[in-house]
């Protein structure tokens, strides 16, 4: 089992691809994506409307510990532009 950093991102569904493309650019294409997520944050309620206008998407990304700073640096401006949450924590990869 190796140490990895797990990133849990929750971002608007309409902008999720921008986050994923940023990760692709860093050569980190592996990810898990949960669509149809609701939420409430600084930008008010998200999800739970029939047009999915405000839907969130959940992104889970496990990255090598030595790359986490780089990833965070790449995602931070996006998070500031379009909102969303990003949590970083420790895990081990089986």
């Amino acid at each position, binding site marked *: 089992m190796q140490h990895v950093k797990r990133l849990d991102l929750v971002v608007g569904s309409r902008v999720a691809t921008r986050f994923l493309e940023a990760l692709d650019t860093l050569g980190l294409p592996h990810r898990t994506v949960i669509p149809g997520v609701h939420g409430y944050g*600084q930008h008010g309620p998200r999800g739970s409307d029939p*047009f999915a206008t405000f839907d969130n998407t959940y992104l889970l990304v496990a990255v090598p510990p030595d790359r986490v700073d780089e990833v965070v640096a790449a995602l931070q401006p996006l998070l500031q532009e379009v909102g969303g949450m990003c949590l970083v924590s420790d895990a081990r990869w089986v």
Partner: protein
Amino acid sequence: MVGNLTDPAILFFFVGLLVGAVRSNLEIPAPVAKFLSLYLLMAIGFKGGQALGQTGVTDAAVRVVAIGVVLALAIPALGFVVLRRRIDHFDAAAIAATYGSVSAVTFIAGTQFLTARGDAPGGYLTVALVLMESPAIIMAVLLATWARARRHVTEQATVLAGVHGPPQPPTASGVTAGHPVPTPPMSMRAILHEAFTDGAHLVLIGSLVVGAASGPTGGRAMAPFVDGVFTGLLAFFLLEMGLLVARQLREARDVGPFLVGFAIGMPLVGATLALALGTVAGLSVGDLALLAVLAASGSYIVVPAVVRYAIPEARPSRYFTMALAVTFPFNIVIGIPLYHAAARALVG
């Protein structure tokens, strides 16, 4: 005027409202609601296209569409002028966009109502629906850019940060702590892309084209889907809309009496404008009434979808709530029969 109240689709809207009000656990799964909303756009687009394909581009079509575009520019401008004196400029721009644009579901309910009463509108009204969706958005984004420039000058930037939602300790949400001034929002290019590639928008346009292209044979093959089950699926969808409005009403803290008044007054003003221009242009009762419905309706799909990112400073708890929880039910219950009666009085 209460004729609307025996229409099963409208009645299901009330069922949804009541079920939502008693806080039932009823929930229409989001994927189903989205399917229904796309279905409605597809059906209305296809039927409009079929009608257009039969009549071709008539004189009446040109007049209706021209008036529609005029309204789509005049209404948001008027709205912003009224609002900017009373509320934050970003909210004002977003609300102006909301009322300048249109609501497809209201359009559908209006079409159903008018058709059932023998005043079926022309297929080109669907073209008006398409063309009236975006101008207000572009206008609002420009207004917000101007407001942002102005704000920067008066250095009020930091004051406005963190106004959204109930209070949350800054350390919890973290992001506010270090970065009080949000970076500039989406570029104009991205905004235009968002506005014109919105899924709902494109399904509507696409269906219009398919309807026009596929002729009577195609029309017959699609009829059980776009006509037969239409009322039933609309009823199901309006049940969900009722639930949604009930839920939204519970979150309506940010909408005071002034904004409630605006959410009813603006539709009436818009409808009056449409009725006036349309009467002068010699439209039929159905066309006139549905144009008034379009003018009176406020967008709660495309506009919020774009404005959320294009004008992040504006509060969805205002513009979205007004359009969905006040104007939509108002139009469905009172507005549509009223505009129809007015159109009959003016033209019939």
